């Protein structure tokens, strides 16, 4: 069924790539994940080894070891074609390049630590190719790929700028003590020439070598075809590069003395590294990319690699793992480990996201949904996209579009402006808090951010209300607004409840002033300090003005107290003002019937905030002036009750709408209309009359009419529609039934289950499915 109705016949999107179900690939995926975890382990291990083994020696041993094993497995000399001289030269070139790439990679490892190396260096080729094609060509593959590339770049920048790795500063103190060969010295001078710190230099180095690696892999593809398979090439390559490195290693071991006391203790870790990094990963990758598509392979592999890297980075230096490691590593090392900082975590998340986006196969064309069939029998597709399906849209265009939509209508515009104001205030507060290092301000700012969520919800609902009806949501999205009002009201209820409980407990055993500020009381923490509370109060007052305007349609002017706001001391008296005005606005709102539940929810939220700040100001005043400690809980009790009472009508109305009640404001007219319908000529009776409000401006209704057998149905339908439209129903469907039909249907509906059973039986008998011969 899925294939039949949602496949895209016109643009043929399904023809290109066939997704194999995951269940068949489970063992390959498991294999991949295991190999990636082992690889992460190996990289961590090799970082430890590299602390006392020279990098060239290290690579030489790796290449030699893998060459021995691969020669044993692949037997490149005894099987396959004979390699010509020209190919040998190419092989040598290839080996030199691969040596350089792995040198750079492992050098980056010594600089950046294993986790960062994993994050930067171990990307699948597919990902990098997609990234490069986005960056340097025009046909990047749509906005989603651009997003992925942006994420990638953000991740790299995160690593560069926000990664406070204090080991780096430690290493910066003795930069000359660490590197001991011409090569490393050269690289260090190059990095310092670039003018960046060691660690940042490592990041740059790793990114560069990542691109080099990918380019190298792409270039080597032709050679691997010539040689006869990538496995054979790999085996030969490791052998040749080991031979290339041999003279250098001999030179090194002659000129410098080794830091290693016994090579014997290193056999196990080396074997482990060789097995996991060089061999296992290569084979598993080869198998998996043969069985799955490369993108999916890359997605799972990257995910496994990064997450295991993160875990290992967390636990590598832990005492528990130290016990395990001590058998392989001589415990003489001073622990100079790279720490796990917030920047790394953030960038790891970004890397994961970007690689999953970049590795995703690019979809050409949209998916059409079947709407129906034309009378000629050709299928009709809907390319609008359903509500939750338009994922791949350009982000900037999306933002401008939605901004335009927001500013189009007064409701959403007001919410938006107020949200901006609120956010600006919050950010000023946060900034100030960070600047002066005051924890109170910062937490206050976060509380305000949380408060903004109600506004965001309201804004979103106001936007979504205007979406067009889709096939799935056939009545449109008007109900979002009611739902949002409901949710807002519900949360206000919860908050009021908590404030109430808190104030009751404080009433019962009043705490001294010092501890009461530490309470998690909503009001206290929100408006604990007077300047902030006055500021918040001003913001909220503006909001109340704006929203009550929306309710009373400009009949009331709020400008009367807009002039003296600059005086901090006057804040108190204004508080009183705002309060009374607020309740006015509310009264208006409920008098006009409160068509828009969403706006009412937002308004109530702002009102509650204002009440809270007013209450805090009043209670502080009372406490300071008269020393009435009891004023605080009583105030909050009072406010909680007020919030509670003002939310109840909203909740009740929203509940009624959601429960499909007949709209109360139309009830009388509807009853009158029904009576008139019964008196129409030819109408016998009506049944199953349902009317309900779907959204603010849509009342839906359905009705069954029984008519005499000799009247014209069309006329009846028109009359009934007109009558009910006068009563306010604007989405009506009338079913006109003549007597015979009514008898038939009453038989049908009395035994629904029997009918169902009957039809199922008929289905099993394979009746002609065009539906014309059921009767």
């Amino acid at each position, binding site marked *: 069924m899925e294939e039949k109705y949602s496949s895209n016949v016109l643009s043929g999107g399904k023809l290109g790539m066939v997704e194999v179900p995951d269940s068949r690939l489970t063992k390959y995926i498991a294999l991949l994940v295991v190999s990636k975890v082992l690889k992460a382990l190996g990289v961590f291990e090799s970082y430890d080894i590299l602390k006392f083994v020279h990098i060239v020696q290290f690579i030489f041993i790796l290449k030699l070891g893998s060459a021995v094993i691969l020669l044993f497995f692949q037997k490149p000399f005894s099987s396959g074609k004979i390699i010509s001289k020209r190919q040998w030269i190419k092989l040598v070139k290839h080996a030199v390049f691969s040596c350089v790439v792995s040198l750079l990679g492992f050098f980056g490892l010594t600089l950046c630590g294993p986790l960062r190396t994993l994050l930067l260096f171990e990307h699948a080729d597919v990902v990098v190719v997609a990234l490069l094609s986005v960056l340097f060509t025009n046909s990047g593959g749509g906005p989603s790929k651009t997003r992925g590339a942006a994420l990638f770049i953000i991740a790299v920048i995160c690593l560069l700028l926000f990664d406070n790795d204090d080991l780096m500063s430690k290493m910066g103190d003795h930069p000359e003590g660490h590197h001991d060969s011409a090569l490393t010295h050269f690289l260090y001078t190059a990095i310092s020439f670039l003018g960046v710190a060691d660690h940042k230099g490592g990041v740059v180095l790793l990114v560069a070598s990542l691109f080099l690696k990918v380019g190298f892999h792409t270039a080597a593809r032709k050679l691997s075809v010539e040689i006869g398979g990538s496995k054979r090439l790999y085996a030969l390559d490791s052998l040749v590069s080991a031979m290339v490195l041999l003279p250098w290693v001999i030179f090194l071991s002659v000129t410098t003395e080794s830091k290693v006391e016994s090579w014997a203790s290193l056999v196990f870790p080396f074997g482990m590294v060789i097995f996991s990094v060089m061999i296992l990963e290569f084979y598993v990758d080869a198998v998996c990319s043969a069985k799955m598509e490369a993108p999916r392979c890359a997605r799972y592999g990257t995910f496994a690699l990064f997450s295991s890297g993160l875990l290992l980075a967390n636990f590598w230096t832990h005492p528990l793992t130290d016990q395990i490691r001590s058998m392989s590593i001589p415990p003489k090392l001073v622990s100079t480990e790279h720490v796990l900082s917030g920047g790394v975590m953030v960038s790891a998340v970004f890397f994961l996201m970007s690689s999953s986006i970049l590795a995703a196969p690019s979809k050409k064309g949209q998916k059409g949904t079947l709407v*129906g069939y034309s009378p000629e029998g050709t299928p009709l597709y809907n390319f609008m996209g359903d509500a939750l399906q338009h994922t791949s849209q350009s982000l900037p265009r999306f933002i401008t579009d939605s901004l335009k939509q927001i500013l189009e209508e007064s409701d959403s515009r007001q919410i938006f402006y107020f949200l901006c104001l609120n956010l600006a205030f919050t950010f000023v507060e946060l900034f100030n808090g960070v600047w002066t290092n005051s924890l109170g301000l910062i937490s206050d700012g976060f509380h305000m951010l949380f408060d903004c969520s109600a506004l965001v919800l309201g804004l979103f609902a106001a936007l979504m209300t205007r979406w067009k009806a889709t096939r799935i949501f*056939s009545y449109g999205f008007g109900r979002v607004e009611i739902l949002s009002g409901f949710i807002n009201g519900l949360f206000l209820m919860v908050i009021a409840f908590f404030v109430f409980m808190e104030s009751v407990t404080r009433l019962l055993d009043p705490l001294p002033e010092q501890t009461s500020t530490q309470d998690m009381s909503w009001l206290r923490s929100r408006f604990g300090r007077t300047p902030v509370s006055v500021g918040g109060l001003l913001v909220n007052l503006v909001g109340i003005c704006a929203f009550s305007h929306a309710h009373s349609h400009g009949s009331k002017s709020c400008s009367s107290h807009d002039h003296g706001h600059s005086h901090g001391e006057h804040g108190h008296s204004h508080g009183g003002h705002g309060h009374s005005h607020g309740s006015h606005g509310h009264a208006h709102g409920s008098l006009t019937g409160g068509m828009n539940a969403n706006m009412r929810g937002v308004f109530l939220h702002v009102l509650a905030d204002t009440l809270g700040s007013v209450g805090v100001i009043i209670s502080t005043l009372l406490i300071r002036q008269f020393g009435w400690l009891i004023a605080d809980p009583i105030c909050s009790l009072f406010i909680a009750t007020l919030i509670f009472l003002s939310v109840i009508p909203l909740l009740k109305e929203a509940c009624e709408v959601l429960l*499909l009640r007949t709209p109360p404001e139309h009830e009388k007219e509807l009853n009158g209309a029904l009576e008139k319908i019964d008196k129409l000529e030819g109408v016998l009776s009506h049944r199953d009359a349902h009317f309900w409000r779907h959204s603010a401006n849509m009342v839906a209704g359905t009705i069954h009419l029984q008519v005499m057998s000799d009247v014209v149905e069309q006329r009846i339908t028109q009359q009934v529609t007109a009558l009910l439209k006068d009563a306010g129903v604007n989405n009506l*469907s009338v079913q006109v039934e003549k007597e015979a039909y009514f008898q038939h249907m009453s038989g049908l509906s009395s035994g629904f289950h029997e009918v169902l059973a009957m*039809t199922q039986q008929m289905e099993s008998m394979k009746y002609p499915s*065009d539906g014309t011969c059921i009767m």
Partner: protein
Amino acid sequence: MLPLSIKDDEYKPAKFNLLLKLSGWFRSILAEKTSRNLFFFLCLNLSFAFVELTYGIWTNSLGLISDSFHMFFDCTALLAGLAASVISRWRSNDSFSYGYVRAEVLAGFVNGLFLIFTAFFIFSEGIERALEPPDHGGHGHSHGDGGHGHSHSLFNGSAHHGHSHGGHGHSHGGHSHDEHGHGHSHGGHGHGHDHGGHQEPPCSNDLHPAAGKGSSKQILQGVLLHIIADTLGSVGVIISALLMQKYDLMIADPICSMLIALLIGVSVVPLLKESIGILMQRTPPSLDHTLPECYQRVQQLQGVYNLQEPHFWTLCTDVYIGTLKLLVAPDADTRWILSQTHNIFTQAGVRQLYVQIDTAAM
């Protein structure tokens, strides 16, 4: 002319009798299995909370008192579920022409919302604690949570099985907070059993939903999720306490709570999505694929020109309602078309169908 309504003026509603009403509610609660189980579970919970409260007042321990208040708050979810299951069986009247069956969807929605809210707070607290781990003092309270969590989950398992022995429950309720290991394993059991007892008969059948005999899965799902969340919370507390005591992994506590919050969040999402879909009159997902076929068959009927404005939506679990308009030829047999259309959609599972037949202008 017979004076049919002569006594209408004298008729007064029966005096508000609290006792009568209460007994009526009680009977309607006990009349059905789901609400009965919910009610018993609620009673157990409440009695436990009361015992805790009185004990707390007796010994003047603030921790116990606040804990019992927490439990009262937890009870609200159950209460909401119970109220919904009673309300959804009220008869339909003039104002609520569909009856109150949607109350169950609403209850599920509210429960889901609260759970999301809770999960969010747990998560933010976990982050806070991960960034700056507090001293050991804060753990006494969470231990208490674990303690009552296990009683929850236990009751859950027994309540849904229908053989809840009072004594059994009480002995567990009386468990002191120390024996975490027990509670943990039992909690897991309760959770496992629960999925079996979760399939209830679908809500009211036929065209008159008032004659309901089973409340739907939304309530149960919501309540179940709530209880599972509690159980998970206690399990997480126990595990993290173990980890902290044995291995001194202080990071385990925030990580555990974050994981649990994520789990709760993820498990609530389907419930929320479903109930929001129903509340927004979404086309029922189960009909998504059968409807196009039905449209096609209707359009192939003789004399039908076009099919317009099809609206299909869910009233409550498994009750689907649809309206559509047909544009037919002037000489078509409308009666036949009407019954054919009804037949076609009844087979697809649509209980109430309103077909408006418009004749095309010549």
